[in-house]
């Protein structure tokens, strides 16, 4: 660029016109978008969660959102309803959307040339006054503006990805919290049944003691089942409260909204488990963290190119200058400032940029490898959770029920006593609680799989629990 400096100094008027035209052209491309970039965020989110997102800027938007929230809260929440509610209502997410506005401002800023610098100097000596005026344009910034703007554009897109990434994360956190809350609420009912059975045993044992048919030891043994069952119920109730509060936080509800209801039972197990096609490729194509890493690498590549192109020039200023002295003729001229690569040939900056680029390349590869691995792991966990839940539904629970039926027959034949019958009914209820836990694990695993496939890394430690909350009680020794 330095060799294309104009030989002829343009007139003031011509310069002004040229600069104005360039400014007008560039400024025309760099204005705020009507949706602040939310359209793309919403599309990205919808594709991955089935739910759109929006920012509530205007009062109308706020009213619409509030009305929708109220509508969703009317009936028992579904999993999708909970996600929609969280996307509408979660303050953290809205804060993250605001970041998008910041990025857009940067983008618009980048589309506008730097303000010209005007300098004015006045020297007076012995009655002679010397005035210097200069107007300087950062020509290089003008020349690199398209590139800079592209960078900002990419950063803006990254911000859009980030916003969608946050939304998808919130959606999957909400789904998990939802399933946990529904399950633990359902479990409370079953733990209450266990307690009822233990309570009946304990009461009967107390009467047996009163009638002289039981000794203290036998009575206290029954009482201890009751005591354990009471503790179990208390724990289950606390778990239900904690799970509901976690959901509440994600939904961002407060006040009267806290009275939202959850369905009594988890959704049924699907007839068949899904088998996603080309799961790993899907993750590479769709996952936001992969896309972000790729885009970041591209951005780094661009900035590397830029650095190479400008390695010898860090600033080129061109200016018009005139000078007038008292009584002297007005002198017009121009000024150039050029840094010469005498000591630093730009290689340092170039090296740094290259290293940064390679860093980005490796990071992207890592993200992609992790994504593939996470998809495989999530799918394995999903299938295991499905098989386990189906096993509990088709095998364990019906078997326990048949065992109870057989035990009733044995009670009828006076082969076992009422205490064994009650102990067995506690065990039967326990098998149902294990099924509920397995079903919950399935829905959490399903959420994790969907998240890993199209969104982002599933939450750490979200694998199905390997131990159930309640170990099988040792058979009552009568």
């Amino acid at each position, binding site marked *: 660029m330095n060799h294309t400096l104009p030989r002829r100094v343009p007139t003031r008027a011509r310069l002004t016109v040229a600069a104005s035209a360039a400014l007008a052209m560039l400024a025309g491309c760099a204005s705020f978008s009507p949706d602040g970039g939310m359209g793309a965020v919403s599309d990205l989110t919808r594709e991955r969660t089935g739910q759109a997102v929006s920012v509530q800027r205007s009062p109308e938007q706020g009213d619409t959102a509030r009305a929708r929230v109220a509508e969703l809260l009317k009936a028992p929440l579904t999993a999708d309803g909970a996600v929609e509610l969280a996307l509408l209502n979660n303050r953290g997410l809205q804060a993250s959307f605001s970041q998008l506005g910041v990025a857009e401002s940067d983008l618009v800023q980048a589309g506008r040339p730097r303000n010209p610098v005007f300098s004015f100097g006045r020297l007076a000596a012995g009655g002679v006054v010397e005035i210097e005026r200069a107007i300087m344009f950062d020509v290089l910034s003008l020349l690199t503006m398209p590139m800079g703007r592209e960078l900002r554009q990419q950063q803006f897109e990254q911000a859009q990805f980030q916003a969608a990434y946050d939304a998808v994360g919130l959606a999957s956190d909400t789904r998990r919290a939802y399933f946990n809350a529904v399950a633990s609420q359902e479990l409370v009912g079953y733990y209450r*049944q266990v307690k*009822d*059975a233990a*309570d*009946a045993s304990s*009461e*009967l044992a107390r*009467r*047996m003691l*009163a*009638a*002289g*048919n*039981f000794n203290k030891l*036998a009575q206290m043994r029954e009482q201890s089942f009751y005591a354990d069952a009471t503790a179990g119920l208390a724990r289950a109730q606390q778990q239900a409260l904690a799970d509901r509060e976690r959901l509440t936080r994600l939904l961002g509800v407060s006040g009267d909204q806290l009275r939202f209801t959850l369905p009594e039972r988890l959704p049924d197990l699907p007839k068949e488990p899904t088998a996603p096609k080309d799961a790993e490729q899907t993750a590479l194509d769709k996952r936001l963290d992969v896309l972000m890493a790729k885009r970041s690498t591209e951005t780094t590549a661009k900035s590397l190119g830029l650095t190479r192109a400008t390695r010898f020039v860090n600033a080129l200023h061109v200016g018009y200058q005139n000078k007038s002295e008292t009584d002297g003729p007005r002198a017009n001229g121009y000024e150039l400032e050029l840094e010469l690569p005498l000591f630093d040939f730009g290689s340092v900056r170039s090296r740094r940029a290259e290293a940064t680029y390679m860093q980005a390349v490796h990071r992207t590869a890592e993200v992609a490898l992790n994504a593939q691995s996470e998809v495989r792991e999530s799918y394995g966990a999903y299938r295991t959770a499905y098989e386990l839940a189906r096993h509990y539904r088709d095998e364990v629970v019906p078997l326990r029920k048949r065992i*109870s039926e*057989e035990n*009733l*027959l*044995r*009670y*009828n*034949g*006076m*082969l*076992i*006593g*009422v*205490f064994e*019958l*009650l102990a067995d*009914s506690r065990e039967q209820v326990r098998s149902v609680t294990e099924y509920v836990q397995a079903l919950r694990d399935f829905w959490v695993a399903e959420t994790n799989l969907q998240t890993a496939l199209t969104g982002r890394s599933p939450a750490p430690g979200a694998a199905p629990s390997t131990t159930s909350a309640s170990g099988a009680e040792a058979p009552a020794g*009568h």
Partner: protein
Amino acid sequence: MSQRRDFFRTAGALALGATAVSRVGAASLPEAVYQTSATMQPPLMPPNGRPYNPVATLNGWSLPWRMNNGVKEFHLVAEPVVREMALGMKANLWGYNGSSPGPTIEAVEGDRVRIFVTNKLPEHTAVHWHGVMLPNGMDGVGGLTQPQIAPGKTFVYEFTLLRPGTHMYHPHADEMTQMAMGMMGMFIIHPKDVRQMRVDRDFVFLLAAYDIEPGAATPRTAEMTDFNLWTWNSRVFPGIDPLVCRTGDRVRVRVGNLTMTNHPIHMHGPHFVVTGTDGGWVPPSARWPEVTTDVAVGQMRAFEFDAVAGDWAIHCHKSHHTMNAMGHDLPNMIGVDHKGVAERITKLVPDYMVMGDKGMADMGSMEMPLPDNTLPMMTGTGPFGPLEMGGMFSVVKVRDDVPRGGYKDPGWFKHPQGSVAYEYTGEVPAATRADAPKANAKTLDVRKPGGGHEGHH
């Protein structure tokens, strides 16, 4: 009923398995007669040989024989069998010739018998002739006096019967398993003189105990004491035949005990005298008059009485032995107030019913679904209501009009006018009593079953 078809089938099978019987030759094997019915077969009148008065095996039969040059030849086949223990329950047992216990072997003092034993069990066996004096090598103790009879093999036992009496046969090879699976039979040696010890009716049965889990069919052979089915000839009441007699008959009952505990066999009504032990006939001067005779483990007893009209219970006097399958760890619910609790239990176990709070008699009349292939602990219905019995229980049914040699169940006894216990409907004056001792924390407050006891608290 002898099943000829079974015989031919067996004969064919034996011919095919000629190697198993080659030492004696297929042609020399007497037929193995099979009987799978648990209905009492009419006593086997001896078609040849020395005459005798045959016995009646409760729910059983006697094994026919073949005379071969003056030797009575019997053929026992040890094999798995299915025995119906009472209507509604079948057991997988091991026995002989289609039944458990095996057929009664009857012969006469002085007879020479040759008994072929074919082993169709999955493991080896041997037969010990319990109480019979014979050459040591015929005593049937596997490993001690003979090699065991391997599966598929046939062994021959041959000896002369020296002394009349009541005896048994059972395995003496893996006997813990084989007897617990029902392998046993009666061996009756009649006196040479038919007039000696003559009776009109001569009943025989063997006591055996099984532990069959309700819903299962094969006994748990490892059980030692906690049996749940106490049987006579592998049958339990109400599946045990009545002992049908004619008024005035001289009746003999012979009992052998192959359980792991003693059984005091008690008969209502006529007194009896113990006329036979393991050692043979008891001299008249040494006979014990009794109404209960204890039959110890491995023993045999024969007692006799003159039949008196009526339905006289006969049973083991250990009260749990007159019960069928029941839980032995049940809590006693007598006197326990179920108010409120029962409803709560019903919520958890919808078909739950309070039982045992007034005693167990409920069980005699209630009909509730039970596990498959088991029997109510109490069952059977008499002319006056539920009998509340199971296990080792039967009835000596004596009637004036029973034909000689007839064993058909005559139905319930028709009591002569005024000979049945009746309800007193007059005044019940309050009893004068001394003060009862004061109750303390350790005193059991037993609540009596309600009904007809309004007079006291």
